């Protein structure tokens, strides 16, 4: 309670103008629209360049041949899926501490997006596993960790939907995602440990630690592209959520009127 008071005071003094603006739905809607206007094309360009470079021009792996190219989807998706959870938990924490409604919107919007990226990572991992390991699903440490991450995301989504009072839902999910954030490193470490206990020698992913620059650069580009893609998805989802929550307000009403007249 006391810590929260102090924190709120500091925020009130130092960052009031910024927070005040972030707390305003029309402002957030407008600024996210402006960001998306240049972010969407940039994301698209990055994705196309990264994909063409990685899938067509980078050299084939000497052991895995061409199948390793799934890495250009798999690795960025996994990286962003994990980062997404931290974005969600951070937004939840901001909502709990400073009671910022827009952080709640961000958290609510991040959960399904993060879950989708996690699913993409798992799916691409399975597709990659078939030619590499000979099975669609192998209980590899990373695969297992990603699966648990997906469960954590789905838990947040399920909890949010279970509450009728959406303000309570946001706070409950914030607590849950913070608990998950504390647990993710523990889960990752323990799954690593578990895997090294059980790992048969035949299943080993080679060529990961020593990656050639000709493969690394397109990978880095794809990771950047996926981060941008995540941001775009998050912002778009946030805008939908904003419109839904504010549907009875004046600014959404006039916005709808303007959009309709544009279409007509």
């Amino acid at each position, binding site marked *: 309670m006391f810590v929260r008071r102090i924190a709120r005071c500091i925020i009130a003094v130092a960052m009031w103008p910024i927070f005040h603006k972030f707390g305003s739905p029309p402002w957030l809607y407008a600024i996210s629209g402006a960001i998306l206007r240049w972010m969407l094309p940039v994301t698209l360009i990055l994705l196309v360049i990264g994909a063409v470079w990685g899938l067509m021009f980078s050299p084939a792996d000497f052991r895995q041949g061409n199948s390793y190219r799934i890495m250009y989807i798999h690795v960025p998706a996994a990286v962003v899926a994990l980062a997404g959870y931290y974005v969600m938990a951070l937004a939840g924490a901001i909502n709990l501490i400073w*009671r910022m409604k827009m952080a709640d919107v961000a958290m609510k919007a991040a959960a399904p997006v993060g879950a989708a990226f996690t699913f993409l990572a798992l799916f691409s991992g399975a597709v990659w596993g078939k030619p590499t390991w000979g099975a669609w699903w192998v209980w590899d440490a990373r695969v297992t960790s990603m699966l648990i991450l997906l469960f954590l995301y789905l838990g947040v989504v399920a909890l949010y939907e279970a509450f009728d*009072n959406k*303000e*309570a839902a946001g*706070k409950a999910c914030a607590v849950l995602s913070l608990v998950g954030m504390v647990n993710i490193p523990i889960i990752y470490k323990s799954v690593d440990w578990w895997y090294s206990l059980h790992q048969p020698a035949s299943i080993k992913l080679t060529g990961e630690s020593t990656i050639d620059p000709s493969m690394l650069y397109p990978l880095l580009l794809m990771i950047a592209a996926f981060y941008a893609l995540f941001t775009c998805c998050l912002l778009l989802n946030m805008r939908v959520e904003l419109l839904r929550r504010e549907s*009875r307000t004046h600014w959404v009403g006039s916005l709808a009127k303007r959009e309709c007249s544009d279409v007509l």
Partner: protein
Amino acid sequence: MSGDPASSPLLASQSLCLIRGGRELFRELSFEVYAGQLWQIEGLNGAGKTSLIRILCGLSRFGFEGEVVCNSPLLYLGHQPAVKALLTPRENLSWHVSGDGLHSNTQIESALARVGLSGYEDVPCHTLSAGQHRRVNLARLFLSEAALWLLDEPFAAIDKEGVDELQTLLTAHVKAGGAVVMTSHQALQVNCDVRFLNLGAGVAA
């Protein structure tokens, strides 16, 4: 906690505003409860009486605007009696989760006698009626040392004698320098001033 008790309110609310489901229940609700006052919150069903009591006692912490300052230990009795069916009335009171004191056996017996439950001290509560559960809960009023009482529909499911007894208790508490904020639909018959807070009109009178 500090300051002159005559001048500082036990409970102060500043511009409370509550919106539920797009409907504004009350706004700019500011009032101060001083020692020796009895406040009755009035309003139709759905006017926000229970919500207001829960905001005042601190159970509601979000979903409203404004601020509540409470300068006194408080006793809150809500709709649910907080009585465990598997425990006896004596155990329910002596081991109450609110932790509001260590009561001797004689204190508990006299409190239960005051609410008309003498002879029932050691029977399991699941054999008692709903009204008797509420009476076990009301016995806490006789045990509590809190100056500020927040009571949500204290007369519900209580028979006529019980209501009279309770009104006497409220008067005595207010006269002794306590304060009561309560919701009720019926007119109080007490020997002290009653201040009304009408939620329909949204004004303190």
